[in-house]
């Protein structure tokens, strides 16, 4: 069967069909490759080529274990989880040889992180650069950086972040609150907010 015939199916239906027909997995790859590529680069700082390699491996992992996909879970959370784990695993191996990636396509994400700090009475100034926000994110511990990126750049809910990082919602809320405070402190120190 050709992958084009599956376009009208939702993610979870495609995942179920992919157990017996690999063509059903192709629309899933098509739907998620752009945002997962951006996500890999945001949390790891990998070059586009490296990020593509990671993503390809993540999709292969997902396909190999498609039978273990729990239909009670959203496919997007599951594929994010696999991609996240694969990225972190490779990131740990090669963190010393990372390139800085371009932030041109991420205006909205960075603005959302800044806007999230209004509740702790910090206001973004118009002069702030995306590069500075990225610098602050890079200074944060990995967990804080991941939750901020998932919450404000990927716009995931607490429940979705919990499914991706395999953590209870309450814990996710705590992580995000702490990460925001750390971000605000660093931003204040850097005098960008």
């Amino acid at each position, binding site marked *: 069967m050709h*992958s084009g015939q599956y376009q009208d199916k939702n993610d979870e239906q495609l995942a179920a069909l992919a157990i017996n027909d*690999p*063509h059903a997995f*192709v*629309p899933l790859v098509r739907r998620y490759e752009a945002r997962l590529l951006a996500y890999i680069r945001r949390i790891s700082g990998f070059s586009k080529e490296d990020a593509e390699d990671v993503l390809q491996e993540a999709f*292969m992992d997902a396909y190999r274990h498609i*039978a273990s996909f729990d239909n009670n879970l959203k496919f997007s959370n599951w594929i994010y989880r696999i991609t996240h784990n694969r990225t972190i695993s490779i990131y740990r191996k090669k963190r010393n040889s990372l390139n800085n990636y371009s932030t041109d396509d991420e205006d909205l994400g960075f603005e959302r992180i800044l806007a999230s700090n209004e509740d702790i009475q910090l206001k973004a100034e118009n002069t702030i650069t995306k590069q500075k926000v990225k610098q602050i994110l890079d200074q944060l511990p990995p967990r804080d950086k991941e939750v901020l990126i998932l919450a404000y750049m990927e716009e995931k809910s607490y429940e979705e972040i919990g499914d991706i990082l395999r953590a209870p919602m309450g814990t996710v809320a705590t992580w995000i609150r702490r990460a925001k405070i750390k971000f605000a402190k660093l931003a204040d120190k850097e005098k960008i907010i």
Partner: protein
Amino acid sequence: MSIAEQFEQKINQGDLPKPVPKFLVTAARAALWIFLALVVSLGSLSAGVAAWFMTDPVALSGAAAGASWVDLFLQALPMFWVVIALLCGFLAIIIFIKSARGYKYRRVYVVTACLVGFLALGAALASAGVSDTIDKMAYENIPQYNGLSKPRMLHLMKPDSGFIIGRVQTMDGSRLVIRDPGGGVWEVRLDRETNIPVHFKIQIGDCVRILGDASSTIFTTDARDIKPCPRGIRHMPPQPPPVIER
């Protein structure tokens, strides 16, 4: 070429590995839940036996007069069962958290639920009389269990303080002959002053605990108190008599 296109190309060229079959995933999940059920069962049984030992009124009775409450508690604490229960609890928590949806629950809730569950199940099993059977089975089937129980037994076997335990060999109205865990045979003299619980009808083969006059030289004592052996000791198998070197 996009990743989707590369993926499709692999399918068409037959380069894509086959996914893990569904039945294997189902079997692995079932095995995990069966293992969890076994761990919970063993943990509950262990917690039940531990609770049964620790709530033994005989273990904490005045027979060990002079001992502090801490000493009495430590004497009654069945370390073997406590360790098994803790290990099972730890394992059950890990398995549950690692299960497909276990991460959704806060660790503190999982740990609390595990503790409460083990204690509740254990208490139910203990009150159903299962703990006594398990203790007996452990003596019969685990050779090392006898050795593990010895420290508890030694607390109760201090002839120079008047504490003796042993299994009744023969008896009549005025005396008992018992064999202690080291194989020594004791003549225990009874009189009107000897205190025996009303519900305790001594029979040959019973494990009894004597509080009598201090004795360290001859195997004879005048009993002041006779009680059944505490839980965890009473099923201890009889020991052979000591070898006398000539």
